[in-house]
């Protein structure tokens, strides 16, 4: 075939493929907004579910999800950042480091439902936390650990080497160098990763199925050993387990979850782009 013609045909085909990938994204979001927006009102956001969850609001699910993601980040942010510090500032190029990196890649690939099983067997049963905020948060925290480590590692690596040399030459100890000359400059990158991790944790259902999520609770949780309702699980329950739910109610729940997750991602993108613009070295 004429090379010019095949060039044109091929470029048209890959353009078509790209549109086929991107268009449904817009379509999905448009559908959820269109069908979910009518359900949004003050009562929906701040009220309890009523009439077997066929009416009323989703406040306990929103609150539960916020508790769970806060708990997850409370655990995984410090551990993830310290782990990244080890990899960037301390590790040498040896077998152990290779093994750590392989473990991180693998953690990122473990199916979310397997994290659920792990959380059930370790936190709920072995540590006797029961089905609780604590068990669910720790499970989610472990799940997002690779996200945080990877982001923090990139952020630490992006701090120029001269910062380290200058700091050490002025007599700083290694930890002083990390704390004063590296962490402050890596902070935006670390925050970006943390928020992306939060978004991921907020949307996951499978890890919380057997570690914390409750079908329906008539009251708000009082301690970290209580169960909670959670938005993604609530959406699952409404759309598959409860018959005759008004469509606007399910779409409204989907919309709130989507908005929550997208706001977190938007924040991460804003921090990232501001940081890129401000960087002066």
């Amino acid at each position: 075939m004429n090379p010019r013609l095949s060039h044109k045909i091929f470029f048209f085909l890959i353009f078509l493929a790209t549109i086929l990938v991107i268009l449904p994204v817009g379509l999905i979001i448009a559908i959820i907004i269109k069908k979910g927006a009518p359900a949004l009102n003050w009562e929906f956001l701040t009220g309890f579910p009523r009439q077997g969850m066929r009416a009323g609001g989703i406040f306990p699910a929103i609150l539960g999800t916020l508790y769970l993601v806060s708990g997850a980040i409370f655990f995984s942010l410090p551990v993830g950042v310290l782990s990244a510090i080890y990899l960037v500032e301390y590790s040498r190029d040896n077998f152990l480091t290779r093994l750590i990196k392989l473990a991180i890649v693998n953690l990122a690939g473990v199916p979310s439902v397997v994290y659920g099983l792990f959380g059930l067997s370790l936190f709920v049963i072995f540590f006797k936390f029961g089905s609780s905020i604590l068990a669910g948060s720790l499970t989610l925290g472990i799940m997002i650990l690779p996200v945080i480590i990877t982001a923090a590692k990139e952020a630490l690596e992006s701090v120029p080497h001269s910062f380290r040399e200058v700091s050490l030459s002025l007599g700083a100890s290694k930890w002083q160098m990390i704390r004063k000359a590296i962490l402050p400059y890596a902070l935006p990158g670390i925050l970006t990763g943390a928020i992306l991790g939060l978004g991921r944790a907020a949307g996951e259902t499978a890890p919380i199925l057997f570690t914390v999520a409750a079908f329906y609770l008539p009251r708000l949780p009082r301690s970290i050993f209580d169960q909670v309702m959670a938005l993604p699980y609530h959406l699952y329950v409404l759309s598959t387990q409860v018959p005759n739910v008004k469509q606007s109610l399910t779409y409204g729940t989907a919309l709130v979850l989507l908005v929550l997750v997208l706001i977190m991602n938007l924040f991460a993108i804003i921090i990232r782009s501001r940081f890129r613009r401000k960087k002066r070295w």
Partner: protein
Amino acid sequence: MRLRQLKEFLIENLILISGIISIIIVALIFLFLLKEAIGLFKTVSLWKFISGKNWYPISDPPRFGILSLILGTIFVTLGASIISIPLGIASAIYIAEVAPKSFKEILKAGIELLAAIPSVVLGFIGMNTLVPLVKKTFDLPTGLTAFSGSIMLAFMAMPTIVSIAEDALTAVPKQYKEGAIALGATHWQAIRRVILPAGLSGIVAAIMLGIGRVIGETMAVMMITGNAAVIPHTLLQPVRTLTATIAAEMGETVVGSNHYFALFGIGLTLFIITFLVNLVADIALHRKR
């Protein structure tokens, strides 16, 4: 002075422990899955578990054969791969090589957006749009089929495949392409003969990670594929995957029962499969450097 040294000693040890925490967690996941799964193999042999055709966990006597579930996973994974690999790589080529700069940013943002949508939301949308469509188009008794699941999963694997393949293509040195074009090749010839082969290992990694994502996906699959634990023959019938079985049944089992052990056995199977898939992807990625 002494106090500071003590503090630094403690912190550095904390950093060291955190450094190896990923290894500890991977080992813990494996051990705890194994610890719970092992109970099953006192009564059911490993071979019977993997090759058994019947999954009747609550009948009397119960049957714990996961072959139909493995086939269910293979069916949706194959279906999703057939759709997502060509589309994903084509999009990656378009984004990396062809798209004008501003359009490229929009496309990348779209892909990131897709990656951010929770799987339960995609499952919910799939139930309400895709499933009725499949039912009508193929005139089936139900639209909850392996085919619907494949389409949804292909879509969900897209961010992984596109972004990693795009990175791999962008990482190919500019001189390669310039050389090819200077020799009179069209842009497409340069892509096919020079850029794609040079980025191949990255593309292989993208495909493997995409497949890993598909195998492990739970909620959307559970909501869309119909969950019938039978040996599937065509893509147009309901299937049940490994992941969906765990998610759907774990809530109803008694801790310490054979059913409970068997679900952990499925979890262990999944863990091993995704471990291997990720290992291959990692090896492919490292060969590049």
